[in-house]
């Protein structure tokens, strides 16, 4: 009877992730290779991101290439996300995951700082991020470099997709992290000046761009100090698209004209109406 129909809807479904399609996807995954297709690849950032603590604050750097399997999906994407006026976060891993995670944490931090009435601290953002990522056991593929300056000074954290974090003076993440870390390990000193720190981060990202296939295009930098944020995008256009040296257009008269016929189309005006646009 009709009764069975609606009793199941009487239950309250709280929302959030829905796992309805997982079994179907598993079945498709198993069969799709037999048909000759491949399942769509998630857009990853296949990245080099890094951060360094210097004398007055934090410098964060990132490349700008987003890949989808073996194809470059976005040649100039922005990987340094805003969390709060004094905290910024670089994201590597699945692009959608980093984007949504940083937006959620940014909203939560804003609400929290309105509730406390103080500027948010980097440790708060770190704790929120690690608790959320641990709850989803690494299925949210977001590897983040979180940096900012708060009342206790400059802080830099690296956060892994499963929820572990490290608080260090210099960190790198992403597929080009080894190349960038090599540059850091060679030239890092504590308490650098701003110009030296910017050059170090720029060189580390450049090492990732030129030695790793998953990173490329330009270098973005974000310099955070107490009370000021410099978002330099792009700081360095390392891979400029070349200019064509020759023109491939043919000159007028290259092709000889043999015959020419003109056919006029006789159109008569049937109806003319004027509609005024509502520009108010």
């Amino acid at each position, binding site marked *: 009877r*009709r009764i069975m129909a*609606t009793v199941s809807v009487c239950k309250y479904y*709280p929302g*959030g*992730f829905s796992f309805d399609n997982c079994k179907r996807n598993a079945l498709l995954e198993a069969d799709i290779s037999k048909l000759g297709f491949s399942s769509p690849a998630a857009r990853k950032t296949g990245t080099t991101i890094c951060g360094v603590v210097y004398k007055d604050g934090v410098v964060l750097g990132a490349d700008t290439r987003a890949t989808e399997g073996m194809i470059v999906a976005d040649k100039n994407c922005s990987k340094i996300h805003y969390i709060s006026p004094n905290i910024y976060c670089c994201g590597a891993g699945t692009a959608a995951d980093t984007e*949504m995670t940083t937006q959620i944490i940014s909203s939560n931090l804003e*609400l*929290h700082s309105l509730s406390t009435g103080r500027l948010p601290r980097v440790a708060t953002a770190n704790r929120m991020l690690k608790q959320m990522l641990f*709850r989803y*056991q690494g299925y949210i593929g977001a590897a983040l470099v979180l940096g900012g300056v708060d009342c206790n000074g400059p802080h830099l954290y690296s956060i892994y997709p499963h929820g572990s974090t490290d608080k260090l003076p210099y960190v790198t993440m992403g597929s080009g992290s080894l190349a960038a870390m090599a540059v850091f390990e060679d030239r890092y000193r504590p308490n650098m000046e701003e110009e030296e720190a910017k050059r170090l981060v720029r060189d580390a990202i450049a090492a990732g761009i030129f030695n790793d296939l998953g990173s490329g295009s330009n270098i973005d930098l974000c310099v955070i100090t107490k009370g000021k944020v410099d978002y330099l995008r792009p700081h360095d256009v390392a891979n400029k698209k070349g200019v064509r040296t020759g023109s491939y257009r043919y000159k007028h008269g290259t092709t000889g004209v043999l015959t020419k016929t003109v056919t006029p189309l006789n159109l008569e005006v049937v109806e003319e109406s004027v509609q005024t646009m509502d520009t108010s």
Partner: protein
Amino acid sequence: IVPVTGLCPQAGPYGVQDSLRRGFSSVKNELLPSHPLELSEKNFQLNQDKMNFNTLRNIQGLHAPLKLQMEYRAARQIQRLPFLPSSNLALDTLRGSDDTIGFEDILNDPVQSEMMGDPHIMTEYKLGVL
């Protein structure tokens, strides 16, 4: 991998197996979770509450969780008409989740669900008249 009854019941709206929407049914499908996170996400709020109440009991004594649970029970009873989704504002304030945003507010918001129960049947069910 924990076999749990009623994880993905193949019954559709009319109590019969719903092949169009859920595919062919098998006993294994209904007993095992389709994703490792499914069980933990379904019970997440309950587990959080249990953990918080236990900590509160250990710190302040049995009266604290008892009083709080009485308030939760009262807040849970404030609902709208049977077929309308409730915003659960009092419950959110008690839990402290009224100033946080999570995936449950962005994805699959029950306010925006496309299905709604038949108002007459829902009210009859609620009043026990059916």
